[in-house]
């Protein structure tokens, strides 16, 4: 698949240098604002933010990228077991993450570090999972972000059920209605669970936004291994709207996600958003993408960087000056530094915590094993062992 300048092969042929008619874009790679953009759902999208808000988005993007780079470095140095970098997907995550209202609930995969950041989750928390210290450190109820899900697609059904619960609670139909956003990748769309989630959401008219980050790869497999047609069109067969957005455009992503969430909370049912983006790095730190993709492809996408275009925009529009840019860089640096220090200081879990929380009500079998293991550990105490 040729990946054109705007990266938007849509229903018909992709026209190089032009966004396909149904690819929502509000900020070009050069930082030019597009006033209005019509989606595949026939809706005209636009956005009007305050300067403060534009600067906020820029800040998010920069900080998130910096923290991500720090995590990658920490992994290289052996401080994390593995890391799933979001490099290149910052706009998709910040655009959608900032579009959430406080009452909304998010169900992430394992790569949504940017979304977590937008929800106010301390960036140390996802890192404990990747360090191997725990398997989920933040409280989903407190931050309204569920735990990471590693089994591909499983969270789409959880999100759907949660959304059904919103309806049962009578929390749809007004501005204060609640909605769910469910994240998943292009590869995930092939899983039975994800398609079942589409069916259930449609049948129960659930207040949910399916947010697919099509980063063009599922580990080594390009999108052609999962579908012959654009992914957003999957929604057609299930009876709810689907649309594609430039996932490297934080403004367009914000606009379409905000609209879809608001539709959901007002009782208009599900939407599938395909955020067309690119995984600039490896799948995870254990992956070697040079085995399956060419450098020129990566370079093409480099030219559509999600941060560069916002910077160009805020500078050209004089929304931000050099001092602001420098300040954000400094903030990012400081946050990264703190993150590093806190990762290094993270204590290992005590062996016996292994037996905790297997069941809310406990189990005599687990208790006996804990006790026996404690005695066993004690038996080494003082020995040269």
């Amino acid at each position, binding site marked *: 698949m040729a990946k054109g300048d705007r990266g938007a092969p849509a229903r018909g042929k992709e026209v190089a240098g032009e966004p396909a008619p149904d690819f929502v874009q509000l900020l070009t790679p050069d930082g030019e604002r597009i006033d209005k953009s019509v989606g595949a759902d026939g809706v005209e999208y636009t956005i009007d933010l305050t300067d403060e808000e534009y600067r906020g988005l820029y800040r998010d993007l920069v900080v998130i990228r910096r923290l991500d780079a720090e995590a990658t470095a920490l992994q290289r140095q052996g401080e994390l077991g593995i890391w799933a970098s979001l490099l290149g997907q910052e706009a998709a995550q910040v655009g959608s993450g900032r579009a959430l209202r406080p009452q909304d609930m998010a169900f992430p995969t394992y790569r949504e570090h940017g979304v977590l950041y937008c929800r106010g989750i301390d960036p140390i928390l996802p890192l404990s999972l990747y360090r191997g210290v725990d398997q989920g450190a933040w409280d989903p109820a407190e931050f309204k972000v569920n735990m990471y899900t590693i089994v591909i697609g499983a969270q789409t059904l959880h999100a759907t059920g949660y959304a059904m619960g919103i309806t049962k609670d009578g929390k749809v139909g007004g501005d204060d209605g609640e909605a769910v956003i469910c994240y998943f990748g292009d590869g995930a769309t092939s899983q039975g669970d994800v398609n079942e989630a589409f069916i259930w959401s449609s049948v129960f008219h659930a207040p949910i936004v399916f947010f697919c980050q099509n980063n063009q790869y599922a580990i080594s497999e390009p999108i052609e291994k999962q579908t012959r047609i654009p992914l957003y069109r999957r929604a057609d067969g299930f009876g709810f709207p689907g649309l594609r957005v430039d996932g490297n455009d934080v403004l367009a992503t914000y606009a379409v996600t905000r609209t879809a969430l608001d539709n959901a909370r007002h009782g208009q049912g599900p939407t599938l958003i395909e955020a067309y983006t690119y995984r600039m790095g490896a799948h995870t730190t254990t992956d070697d993408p040079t085995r399956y993709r060419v450098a020129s492809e990566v370079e093409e996408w480099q030219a559509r960087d999600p941060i560069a275009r916002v910077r160009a925009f805020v500078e050209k529009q004089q929304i931000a000056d050099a001092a602001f840019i420098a300040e954000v860089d400094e903030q990012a640096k400081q946050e990264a530094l703190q993150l590093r220090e806190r990762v290094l200081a993270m204590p290992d879990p005590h062996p016996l915590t292994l037996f905790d*929380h297997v069941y*809310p009500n406990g189990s005599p079998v687990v208790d006996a094993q804990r006790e026996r293991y404690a005695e066993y550990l004690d038996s080494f105490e003082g020995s040269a062992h």
Partner: protein
Amino acid sequence: MAEKLTIGKALNAGLRRALEQDPKVLIMGEDVGKLGGVFRITDGLQKDFGEDRVIDTPLAESGIIGTAVGLAIRGYRPVCEIQFDGFVYPAYDQIVSQVAKMHFRSQGKVKVPMVIRIPFGGGIGAVEHHSESPEAYFAHTAGLKVVACSSPQDAYTMIQQAIASDDPIVFLEPKRRYHEKGEVDTEATYPLHASRRVRPGTDATVLAYGPMVRTALDAATAAQEDGRDLEVFDLRTLSPLDLEPVFESVRRTGRCVIVHEAPSNVGLGAEIAARITEECFYSLEAPVLRVTGFDTPYPAARLEEDYLPDLDRVLDAVDRTFGW
């Protein structure tokens, strides 16, 4: 208040009471609403509690369990019906990787108080996939609890206890016994996760659960004629097992036979035999023997009487423990 009910009706009454007592309880599954389930266990519940609480779902078991996880996270207490034992496997990933692990992996922050009801076992003359005994698959899975009822009383009480518990519970119903009747004391209280001695005896210990409890009791009655006094346990809780009372019994009798319909290989019987041997090593007069389904797929209906443990096979095993 005591009345005589079938196991099926006792389950229905227990579900009804759970729906009455907690507005967060939901029932969901295929055909559970208007039809009341293919075994009528949920009969009348949708009519009385509405489509919002008794939900006819799309035909997708992974969807049933997966959305129930989400509903549980939202604060609901879903009771999922799997129509037949053989149809739980499309939901296996959600059950073993999500339901079972959620509380552990969240360090207790996320609870998924769900009940997964499965009519299980054979003996009803059905076509394939309708007579499976999948309990070992769940009992081997840490994070799940597994129970099986065998009487109307337990059906009524245990289903409510399972629903009230915050643990995710696989609830096995002995479908071939749905029509068996017995007294139900609606105010009875006793622990959910406890085995029960259902017949005292002195010569050998027989363990069973679900549909095989009746078979074990019948075998004990028959053995009486031969002058053998068998002690019978209804295990009731398959994970965690409650074996202390069993150990006490085997220490007395020195002989033990385990009965289940599931295949022998790596079944519940293996675990129980291993544990009894560990705990009662010097008391055993013979190895713990297993009377089980064979290590073949469940056969066509006209072979199921051969496949399933029955009174004679139980007695044969008891005999063998005496001949050791």
